[in-house]
């Protein structure tokens, strides 16, 4: 549940919480005789069993082929099929050795698959609980128009953490409820940057929606990184 530093129309700001709204489905599996079944990750094969290692061992494809017909050199009977846990992600070089120092580069591709540019990896830092609060831009977009223009992939419900923030969020929700619109929310000093919730995570455009019923409220942050439009024909 991330903290969000949010400002309102009067430029008052407060740190509140954003809760995931996704409802998790609970599905279990039963095996034979109604006994519980559990998922396990297993080893299919390590690097010493792959094609490159086998070729290195048998020198030629012909020799490797003969060895495969004659026996099972690609199977490690001691370890294949063993349960795996506590795994780590690592980088290996072309010799399939562990690498301890890496440099990363981003390759940007156009929609048609052609390469646009290569650049040093960008490190996007989280900006939703920054010193500068998320800006109440006041830019409204009608709900009907918004749903026909953007695909909202994620929703976060903004929740209060005490009495003061209840008043703060309720008045925001009321204002948006009366406007019957979504308000564009931005990060950074000018309030134009997309929102980044965790370091190096996907940046999203954010839209705030408010609903009020009696003294209760819903303040929803709709996040989008996709417009509802067709790819250019040339790219399709």
């Amino acid at each position: 549940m991330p903290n969000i530093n949010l400002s309102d129309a009067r430029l008052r700001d407060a740190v509140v919480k954003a809760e995931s709204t996704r409802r998790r489905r609970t599905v279990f599996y039963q095996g034979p005789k109604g006994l519980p079944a559990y998922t396990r990750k297993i080893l299919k094969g390590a690097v010493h069993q792959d094609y490159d290692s086998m070729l290195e061992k048998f020198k030629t494809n012909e020799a490797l082929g003969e060895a495969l017909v004659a026996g099972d050199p690609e199977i490690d009977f001691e370890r294949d099929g063993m349960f795996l846990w506590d795994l780590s992600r690592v980088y290996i070089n072309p010799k399939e050795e562990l690498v301890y120092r890496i440099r990363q580069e981003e390759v940007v591709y156009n929609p048609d698959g052609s390469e646009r540019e290569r650049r040093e990896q960008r490190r996007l830092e989280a900006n939703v609980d920054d010193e500068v609060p998320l800006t109440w831009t006041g830019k409204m977009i009608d709900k009907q128009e918004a749903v026909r223009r953007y695909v909202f992939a994620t929703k976060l419900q903004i929740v209060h953490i005490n009495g003061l923030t209840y008043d703060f969020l309720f008045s925001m929700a009321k204002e948006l409820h009366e406007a019957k619109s979504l308000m564009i929310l931005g990060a950074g000093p000018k309030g134009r940057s997309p929102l980044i919730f965790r370091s190096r995570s996907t940046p999203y455009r954010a839209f705030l929606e408010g609903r009020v019923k009696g003294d209760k409220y819903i303040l929803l942050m709709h996040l989008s990184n996709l417009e509802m439009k067709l790819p250019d024909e040339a790219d399709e």
Partner: protein
Amino acid sequence: MARKLEFKFSGDAFTCVINKVDRTKIYGRVNTVTYDANDKKCDLATLARDGRTIIPFGGTASGYVNTEGLWIDRDELVPIDRDGEKIPEVPSSFSAPTVLDEMVDVETFLDHPIRLAYHLISDEETTISSALMEKLKAGGIYQFPFSYRGGIYFDPAFLMLGEDDTLWMLIGHKSDIEYLGFEQAAICAARAEEETEDADEETDAFDFDML
């Protein structure tokens, strides 16, 4: 080849070809390439807990086992819910026409996070009824259950027009959104307190006076 989905609206049937639209098709994509100190391209792999078994991409698999650790074949598995009740299987939405009879308001639509977007093109042999198009042009959104391959549940799906009057099907998730009152702050505070108590218990195990 793009698949075709059949819909029924007030007795009129029509078929649409579905085309998935994602960020890659509209904006392109960014791939991260990793190099070692000698500028040799590196691949991501997995290191087992023994610290020496390196597993390449595709070197692991998942499976189901029983309490004794014995393998269970997929066709022997029965999906159940939290109460132990068997979950009935649902058919693929491509196996029968989808009936459009539930119109929802924009708030209901906004309650659903969308995970997939499909552009729909009416099949050459059928046309979308003018009554349906009229409702869609007026901002109508139709909700229906959808499952691509069939399985253990349907996802909520929506049929609507885009800004440029193109036809879209959006597949979402169910979500938990509720009105919050002032008293919910107490719940939040209680949760926070529980978390703090848990943290305290953990901290108690490491008595800082001992250091």
